[in-house]
């Protein structure tokens, strides 16, 4: 008798144990809406787990034996200028998820019961919050679209679906909620089908060009705890671990198009590039008096915009491609890793993507665009298109695209020579040593890296023309001798004439100037220099020789020669 009781006891305990094992996965998740559920949203007395979604008979839709009504609403769909997918109204498995997660149908409303299953705290439909996607799906990753080889090819940055890992499933060729989420299993949080550390799940589909070399993939930088937490929803602590989600949110994104974490373009970058995550503080550069003022524009940048910018704006993403940016250095004029993968405009004015040379990026806005910034100096020859100013066919130009015209520049400081090529950013950059490279901001006008005084009548010092003196030796420029002494020393030191009065630092377009009057970057500042007898010109007379016809500081040059 005792043996018999023990026998039954063993059997019953093993059954109970087995049942609990069977239910372990789902029952321990918040999708266990029964009275035994672990979450705060659960039924008051219903013990069944499956019933909230499934019924063995009279299901609708038929598979997978669904037990809830179709919401029957029209959803606002995701829309992006860079999306190639044909995104339709949610269907397949996705509409099943939405029968709770759009917040329109009571959680306890099931087909198999005539009255709704009661929920704690009077909950009926999905309470507001992360789990309630609402009927506006424009801020959620798109679903219910065909993901095939054609889409992958057209997009250019998606893996071919034949290469998807086994854990990602398409339903009848379509990406659905269930491609990323397994409603029955929550091993990785958010019911994801795979751990998304390093964005492994995102990258199973998304194949971003050059992502492998991107600093946003490789950086182990962490948040220093100051300011805003860049990863409020994540347990991961490094840039590399958070990867895509450092900038993007698959659901309820603050900015719908491209699913960004912040509605203002620059906030997505600055939340890290303010010294709190990234080692360099870009934010403090951008708030300087002269900057590429990304704060002044909102939602004007579009990755699909034409090469030449037609609506004036500047955003971080105009100059940086966050999927490709890296710290690989380059020699002028080649584009460095900081601007890897961005679009631009070539020397001939045609759109290029990506840029090969740094100046091509600058030409995107400072060449053929309307509303581009104008020259700060009122010159004899006006030209605001820097692409034309730096053209290699010009009578003179600073060597941005190629080595300069003048093969005898004695003032050059080593390592510069007549065959050197320089970056735009050698002159236009932060005024601070150790600051992040590039023209983010400066205390000097035109975002110049060093002081450069244009005002006539300023006493010369090493600071006055600090910018020029970085390459051109101050002592040689203003030295003794027939040329330096009579021309530069006389004008710059004695008469307090700015370099800028006679020289146009970018160059003189061949369409306006010529190799007689506009060599050596000569293009007079009309606020200082005026014609004499209707004549205002410099005439090149050969090496270190020239004549000027003009009136300046009340003095007539008719001509004055050297």
């Amino acid at each position, binding site marked *: 008798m005792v043996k018999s009781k023990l026998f039954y006891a063993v059997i019953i305990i093993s059954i109970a144990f087995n049942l609990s094992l069977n239910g372990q996965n789902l029952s321990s998740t918040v999708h266990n809406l029964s009275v035994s559920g672990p979450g705060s949203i659960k039924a008051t007395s219903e013990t069944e787990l*499956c019933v909230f979604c499934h019924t063995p008979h*009279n299901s609708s839709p*038929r598979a997978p034996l669904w037990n809830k009504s179709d919401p029957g609403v029209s959803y606002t769909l995701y829309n992006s200028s860079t999306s190639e997918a044909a995104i339709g109204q949610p269907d397949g498995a996705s509409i099943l998820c939405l029968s709770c997660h759009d917040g329109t149908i009571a959680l306890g409303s099931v087909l198999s019961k005539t009255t709704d299953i009661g929920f704690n705290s009077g909950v009926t439909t999905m309470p507001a919050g992360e789990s309630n996607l609402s009927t506006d799906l424009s801020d959620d990753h798109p679903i219910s679209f065909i993901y095939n080889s054609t889409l992958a090819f057209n997009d250019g940055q998606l893996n071919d679906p034949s290469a998807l890992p086994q854990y990602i499933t398409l339903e009848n060729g379509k990406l659905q909620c269930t491609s990323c989420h397994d409603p029955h299993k929550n091993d990785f949080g958010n019911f994801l089908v795979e751990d998304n550390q390093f964005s492994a799940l995102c990258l199973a589909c998304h194949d971003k060009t050059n992502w492998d070399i991107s600093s946003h993939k490789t950086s182990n930088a962490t948040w220093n705890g100051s300011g805003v937490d860049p990863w409020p929803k994540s347990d991961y602590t490094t840039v590399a671990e958070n990867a895509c989600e450092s900038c993007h949110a698959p659901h309820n994104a603050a900015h719908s198009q491209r699913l960004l974490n912040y509605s203002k373009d620059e906030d997505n970058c600055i939340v890290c590039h303010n010294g709190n995550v990234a080692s360099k503080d870009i934010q403090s550069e951008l708030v300087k008096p002269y900057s590429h003022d990304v704060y002044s524009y909102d939602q004007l940048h579009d990755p699909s915009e034409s090469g030449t910018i037609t609506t004036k704006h500047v955003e971080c993403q105009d100059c940086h491609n966050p999927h490709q940016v890296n710290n690989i250095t380059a020699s002028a004029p080649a584009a460095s890793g900081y601007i890897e993968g961005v679009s631009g405009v070539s020397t001939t004015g045609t759109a290029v993507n990506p840029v090969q040379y740094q100046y091509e990026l600058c030409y995107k806005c400072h060449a053929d665009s309307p509303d581009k910034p104008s020259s700060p100096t009122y010159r004899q020859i006006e030209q605001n298109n820097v692409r034309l100013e730096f053209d290699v066919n010009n009578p003179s130009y600073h060597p941005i695209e190629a080595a300069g015209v003048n093969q005898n520049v004695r003032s050059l400081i080593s390592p510069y020579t007549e065959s050197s090529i320089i970056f735009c950013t050698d002159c236009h950059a932060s005024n601070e040593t150790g600051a992040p490279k590039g023209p983010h901001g400066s205390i000097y006008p035109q975002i110049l890296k060093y002081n450069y005084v244009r005002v006539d009548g300023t006493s010369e010092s090493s600071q006055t023309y600090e910018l020029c003196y970085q390459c051109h030796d101050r002592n040689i420029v203003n030295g003794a001798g027939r040329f330096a002494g009579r021309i530069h020393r006389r004008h710059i030191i004695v008469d307090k004439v700015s370099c800028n009065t006679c020289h146009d630092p970018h160059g003189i377009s061949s369409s306006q100037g010529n190799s007689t009057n506009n060599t050596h970057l000569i293009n007079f500042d009309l606020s200082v220099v005026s014609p004499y007898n209707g004549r205002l010109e410099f005439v090149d007379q050969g090496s270190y020789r020239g004549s000027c016809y003009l009136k300046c500081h009340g003095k007539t040059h008719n001509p004055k020669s050297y």
Partner: protein
Amino acid sequence: MKKLIALIALLFLTTTAFAQITGSAHDFSSESWNSSGEICITCHTPHDAMTGYEPLWNHEVTASTFTLYSSSTLDATLGQPDGPSKLCLSCHDGTVALDNFGGTTTGTSFITGDALIGTDLSNDHPVSFTYDASLATTDGGLNDPTTTSSGLGGMIDADMLYSNKMQCASCHDVHNGAGIDNLLVKSNASSALCLTCHNK
């Protein structure tokens, strides 16, 4: 130990006491279409049973072709209902009269309401498919029926499958042996019946 014995007793009481076909949904002894007043006769006969059907079958069998369940996530191979399921459907598909038993083919009473499954089985849990260890492995969300306890005393395959197939009788006991609503073979509290096979 006393507590354990009490628990065992309670379990047996709640699951087995008073469970019988008499008074259940399958007790048709008082139905107008069953003039015999008997219970068993609508399905069984001790003599001259229909050939080709077990057990001692006495009711006209459906000739319907059924629309089967299909799903992108289904790994089982479904066929037309067979075995005991076909016998259930001989009333529940609504094509054969309830009173077409004992050789009668001119009955006029048909099943109605929730019990009417119809010939479209695509919105019903699939039946008549082989459920073996191989299917469990392929699906990944099913328990191995050969090693998983049914909760009824033995393993799933022994207690709930018929020739290794999942059938209506896997979930339903037509004779109301367990005395549970919907004639279930065991309680579905906490979805225990579903989770016997489904490993979610």
